[in-house]
């Protein structure tokens, strides 16, 4: 019975997850003529710089999202119920607009001839180079991915039993100690899933870096160039994707182990 219910999902997973994965692996290990080869994987080494750059930008965006998102999540989870609903809604509303449109609108704001620079000029202030910088990419990522940090942390925090906080106060905690000794450790699972949900897409994005960063700074741009851009080397694109995927998986695994020991360490 249970098996039959699961069948459609299995088919869905097969078509949309397993098959594409197999195809990526297949292309990564074949040459353009179709023979088996390691050349593509070996060639990935040439892009180490972009890999590092991507992880750096991804990490910076994730940290900024965490710094902004954690207090926001805390505030939402501690407000009255209808205020909570409104605030959650406000976090989600930008996501109803298309991701591309949102990024394009940042572009028109940040461009050399964009709205911000025009305003600066109007007040006789010097123009700023904002588009095509690392800062613009990070801004775009934080803007786009912040809700993915807030939501998981919020949902974990909202579930923290209020009596635990009262118990901590009863045992001598002032507000600061309550946060440090109860709320922070109990929200670790939300933080971990928030970090995952922000870091993975921001390390591998190409749209944001292409539109706001000019295009060849991050590994996602390189992959895009191989597959539909000028470089047109499907096999190399697949190989880079595969390596990226493996590296991200390893990073996340380390994160999770770290997260587990974190909560365990605080036990001892």
């Amino acid at each position, binding site marked *: 019975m249970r098996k039959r219910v699961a069948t459609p999902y299995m088919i869905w997973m097969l078509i949309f997850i397993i098959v594409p994965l197999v195809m990526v692996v297949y292309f990564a290990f074949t040459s353009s003529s179709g023979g088996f080869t390691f050349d593509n994987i070996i060639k990935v080494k040439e892009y180490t710089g972009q890999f590092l750059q991507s992880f750096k930008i991804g990490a910076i965006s994730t940290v900024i999202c965490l710094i902004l998102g954690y207090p926001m999540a805390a505030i939402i989870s501690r407000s009255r119920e209808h205020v909570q609903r409104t605030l959650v809604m406000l976090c989600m509303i930008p996501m109803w607009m298309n991701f591309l449109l949102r990024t394009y609108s940042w572009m028109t704001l940040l461009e050399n001839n964009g709205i911000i620079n025009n305003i600066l000029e109007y007040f006789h202030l010097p123009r700023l180079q904002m588009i095509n910088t690392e800062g613009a990419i990070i801004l775009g990522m934080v803007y786009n991915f912040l809700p993915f940090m807030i939501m998981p942390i919020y949902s974990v925090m909202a579930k923290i039993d209020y009596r635990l906080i009262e118990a901590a106060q*009863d045992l*001598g905690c*002032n507000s600061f100690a309550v946060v440090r000794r109860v709320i922070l450790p109990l929200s670790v699972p939300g933080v971990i899933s928030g970090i995952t949900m922000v870091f993975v897409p921001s390390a591998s994005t190409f749209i944001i870096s292409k539109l706001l960063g000019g295009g060849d700074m991050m590994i996602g741009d390189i992959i895009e160039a191989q597959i539909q851009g000028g470089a047109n080397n499907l096999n190399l694109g697949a190989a880079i994707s595969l390596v990226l995927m493996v590296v991200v998986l390893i990073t996340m695994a380390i994160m999770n182990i770290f997260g587990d020991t974190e909560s365990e360490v605080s036990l001892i």
Partner: protein
Amino acid sequence: MKDQNIINLKDIVVEFDGERVLNGLNLFIRDKEFVTLLGPSGCGKTTTLRIIAGFVEPQSGDVLFDSKKINGVPPYKRPVNTIFQRYALFPHLNVYENIAFGLRINKTPEKEIKERVSEMLKLVNLEGFEKRSVSKLSGGQQQRVAIARAVINKPKVLLLDEPLAALDLKLRQSMQLELKKIQQSLGITFVYVTHDQEEALSMSDIIVVMNNGEIQQIGTPTDIYNEPKNAFVADFIGESNIIDGVMNKDFYVTFAGVGFDCVDKGFEENQPVDVVVRPEDIKVVSPDEGQLVATVESCIFKGVHYEMIMDQEGYKWMVHSTKAENVGDQVGIKILPDDIHIMNKSKVEIYSDDAGEGENN
């Protein structure tokens, strides 16, 4: 006398959303006493505890601790600890760290923490459970961690909100004994909330019976049981026969159509009263020896005694006896003067007075 009362609540009024939850509560609690707040659900027991702990501020009235006013002092600065109804143990900490929590906040040296935690573990019979996660403990074990976590801070007053409600009968009874032992050996004042009258009667030094945000009676368990002040207390503290009567004169009352000698006096002549007779105080005798004659309607075995309903001209008497009677038999009922409790008609009338205008005292 000022050193006697560790807690003093004076004219406490609490309202939630305009609804009065505590209505001019006055209560003092003496040092090292085991005081129980007893009353039906929603009568304000938890609210009273939360006032002492500092989680609720009264709209008016004073909270005194050791004769010092502590209104507005936040919970973490009050020398009281609470055992919450569903324990509220910290799920991210193991048994050891849960118990050590309060000491860590106070920056107690590690060595002392270790000594005191193991002392506590011994006290609550949980040696060897230090590293256990609290979510993997049984209800009784969690309860004992909660006790240890509160008691380790050597609070002057321990507040317990129905701490045993979630446990099964057997465990509850053994925990009652353990709690009482802990209270006596450590000399801590306990303020204990329950709606289980047996628990209250067996554990307390003083019982405070509450209803509708007001104290109905304060007294020792024997006082409360034997001399309930009104019909509510009598009914709540144990099953009772409560019937209307008329106090014809001192030491003489009429109820169920018959006159009885009693031990009460000081009522007005022919004043209507509530008469309370405990089921176990009714003696079943042969019909010609009885003051009343009744027919046995039902007889149920209750483990220790039989519970019988006897019909006497429409009055249904509940009788507890170790000897069963045959259903349908005629029996005599005898009630000794000592076992007849006369009470002023209960509070209902006072409320209707309050609603009326003019009268003020």
